[in-house]
């Protein structure tokens, strides 16, 4: 890895290390993964902070995300422009949150955002229905999916406002131990 020095300055690497859960090597590796998505677009020299974005179509075609039913939401949530086009920072941020080291609260916050399809900061029935459709490939009947959504809200909605706020969601997460290991993408 002789080119390590030319991609980032030492300060940049320090900054990345301090702000993500990654080590130097992983950051470089992630950079190469990122660059492989669009080699002609991304320069090999990041020392002068070029302002480039990889469009969503390419991000969504990564093997880690390609088959994930939530890939578009993930990309949207983590991209600065909200449309899934990602800068390197967004990209690192995404995998940092999805890494093993990220604590439960951080993961829960982003998971909540991912499930909140209409960005209204609440998971309401329509969000739940969308989630359900993605999780079951539209194979539940309308009645069933409505019942399931009602049940979920009934169980998880603590403050009785008919939708799930971030705390409701966190309450639920605390009771679902697998969440930490399943909201995790290895790179």
């Amino acid at each position: 890895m002789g080119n390590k020095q030319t991609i980032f300055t030492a300060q940049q690497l320090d900054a990345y290390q301090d702000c993500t859960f990654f080590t130097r090597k992983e950051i470089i590796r992630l950079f190469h993964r990122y660059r492989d998505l669009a080699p002609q677009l991304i320069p090999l020299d990041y020392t002068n902070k070029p302002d480039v974005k990889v469009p969503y179509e390419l991000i969504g075609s990564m093997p880690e995300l390609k088959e994930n039913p939530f890939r578009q939401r993930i990309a949207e949530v983590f991209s600065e422009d909200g449309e899934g086009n990602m800068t390197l920072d967004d990209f690192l941020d995404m995998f940092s949150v999805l890494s093993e080291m990220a604590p439960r609260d951080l993961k829960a916050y982003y998971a909540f955002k991912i499930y909140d399809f209409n960005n209204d900061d609440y998971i309401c029935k329509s969000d739940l229905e969308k989630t359900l459709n993605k999780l079951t490939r539209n194979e539940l009947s309308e009645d069933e999916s409505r019942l399931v959504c009602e049940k979920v809200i009934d169980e998880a909605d603590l403050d009785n406002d008919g939708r799930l706020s971030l705390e409701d969601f966190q309450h639920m997460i605390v009771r679902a131990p697998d969440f930490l290991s399943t909201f995790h993408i290895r790179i």
Partner: protein
Amino acid sequence: MSYYNREGLFNPAYHDSETLEIDRSPSRRSHHYNPYDRDSEPWQRGLTDWTPPEALPRYNEQGRYLGDSGEGNWRPTDHMAMGLVPHPNGSLRWQHNQGSVNAGYQADSAVDYITPPLEEQPPWAPHMGETLRQRGTRKMSLFPGGGVALGRLGITEEDVREEIQSGEQELVKELVAMSSRDQIQAMRVLQMSLQDKRHIRRQVLACKSSKRGLKLTCLTDCTEQVSRSFRRFGASMVSAKQAMTLWHGTIKEIGGKFGTSVLSYFLFLKWLLMFNVFSFVVNFGFITVPQLVQLPNRTDQINFRGLELLTGAGYFNQTVLYYGGYSNETIGDPPAYDMQLAYFFTIAAYLVLCGLSLIYSMARSFQKNFVLSASGNAWCLLCSWDFSITNVKAIRQRQNNLRVQLKESLSEKNQGFHMTMSEKLKQFGIHLGTWFISTGLAAASCAAIYFLCLGYLDSINDSQDSSLLTEASTLLLPFVVSLINLVIPLLYSLLSKIEKYSNPRTQIYVIILRNVFLKMGILGILCYYWMKILSNRITCWESIVGQDLYRLVIIDFIFLMLETFFGEFLHNIIGTKCLPSLGVPEFDIARNVLNLIYAQTLAWIGIYFSPLLPVLQMIKLFIMFYLKKVSLYQNCQPPRRYGRAAQMQTIFIALLFIPSFVGAVSMVAYTVWSLKPSAHCGPFQGLDTTFEAVVLWMERVNILNLPESMWAVWIFHNVIKSELFFYLISLIILVLIYFFWQITQGRKLLINLLREQIINEGKDKAFLLEKLQKLQKTMPTMASSQPAYTQMPQTYARIQEIEPDYEQDFQGLPGIPHPEEGSGPTGPPITSALIQAMLARKQAEEDEEEGY
């Protein structure tokens, strides 16, 4: 602007309410536009901007009234919205005015409270439509995407920037105050984008360096440098560790194809492998190498025949593989290396370290995974999706499984679950029967092994020759043990099909429990045989025990391979070719993990009798990893019922600790403290117990009376040999356990209470809302009866013109229910802002009533 002060906002109704007061800690503030995180201002602004439509008529009328009374030079500016709620003084004055004119003041006060700005209305009137529209849209800022919306809306960018900056400033201050380690950790968990994090980091660093600039001394500079280099060193250590990570790609692949629950088996295997690598390194370094350096004192040369690989006897008998291969001499000159002490302390240290690391990982796993058990299936929808899966087939399957699970849960709910008395009795009878059978089976196999052991002992005593046949006959015992270990669990799983547990998890736990009983029973019987019977009858019995363990490990390995082949491969063939109803086998995580635990117990027991047994275990685990991987890919499908993998993992670690490790340690401890080592071989020959080596060493040290080693003697006498110390230690531990237990119980109680409180507050809110609704319904009639309003037809009419505009605006907003329908007593999707505003109004009203 003097009237428009934000003070009114510090109405307890806003601040004590649950929904908006989620987390105002500055560390969470960000411009990721989380509504909770945003600084208080925007939503306050939003709240104040928002005027309940019911209030509007009165608002207009009042405006008109006040407009008549005094024409001010008030101009609508962008800031006007900031302070719709009046300064106490302003409001007082205004209240006074109003009180004098408006008889209906009391009833209306809540509304008035929110609407005072129109005090100086008229010049503003032409702009009003616009402003109102603006207000209507600004409400958006209450809602999602807040910040983005803010930008779009009327609030100036400067305001936003200001708020963000003040939030940032606070955050930076907080971060600067932390130690650099905490600082990094805190920075990493900030809920903001990487770019913003870097921005914050830059500020923090700048702040720090400027501080340092003030007190620029060599010392601070040096410490900074040192801490930075330490950090770099730590980071490079972490990456070095990552570089050494075994099977990174394979593990990712398995996770991608089969999900986290299957992966947990492989991670467990890897974890055990690490234990054995460590144990091998320690034993080899501190026991075997010194022994090899000193020339081996082999008495008789036995030729290598090949069968030794299976039996571990014969050629291996005299090697350093077993206890018997070590001598009791001290090696080297004055700085002597005492083999006895080395043997004792190496094994003791290894076991202690193992114990500590097990306790540590158990605690961590409990802390992380063992949470309050969730009821229902809300989590199953939102928290169970496995983001690590990347394989199309696996995703499809998981989606299907989830669908089936959801459907099942729906039908369960519809049916309800009732059992008659006779059914209950029948169920109980079946459970009793299966428990009886399974315990009987375990007991019978233990007895069989015991008698087999006795017979085997006789055969050793009878024939001392080393023909191939006698050597091969030693394989009978491990063969039977492994066979029992293979067959009985199968019977158990058949049994569990008869008894129908309502909860699949209970079923899994029951199977695990029975298997653990069986395996630990067998090992217990074997230990009894080795300790009580074998040790009295045979010279150099430790090596014989070592050989037995070697054979058990090897044969167990062979059986595991066979099981993988027959159990999974044949099942797959039959399932796909002959009997489609049988289906493709699922990967049985519980059974496989229990096998691993059993194998590891053998290795731990063997550590004293055969210090190099970990090598064997290492090879075994290494091969097992690949074997299981291939079998998994070729034959298995991911388990149909998933979920709770993390909890299962905790249970497995606990099982590895409590019967397995604790059992092995107590067995080794018993050997060391109470049994007489064989008189003619091994490092402890000639001593009464193994532990005597330490006692003798202490006496030697005591006689030498070296001042620098007196502490060791003191520790030996006052700590290790004193019963009082152990008594006190166990007392303290018991007290601590009791203490923590009580804390846990207390917290559980507290959690339940808090949950109840949240639910009650939700109900409260709904109730208040309903009341408010009623109140509002009665209010318009009151309003119409008020003479004050009819006195000012002019402005009223003017605002009537604008009103529809406003109404329209309000309805046209997406995501915001029209208040009339949205806040109906039964309509749940009431925006919390609406609730807040209404509650605030209610509160204000009550305050007002008290005041009068």
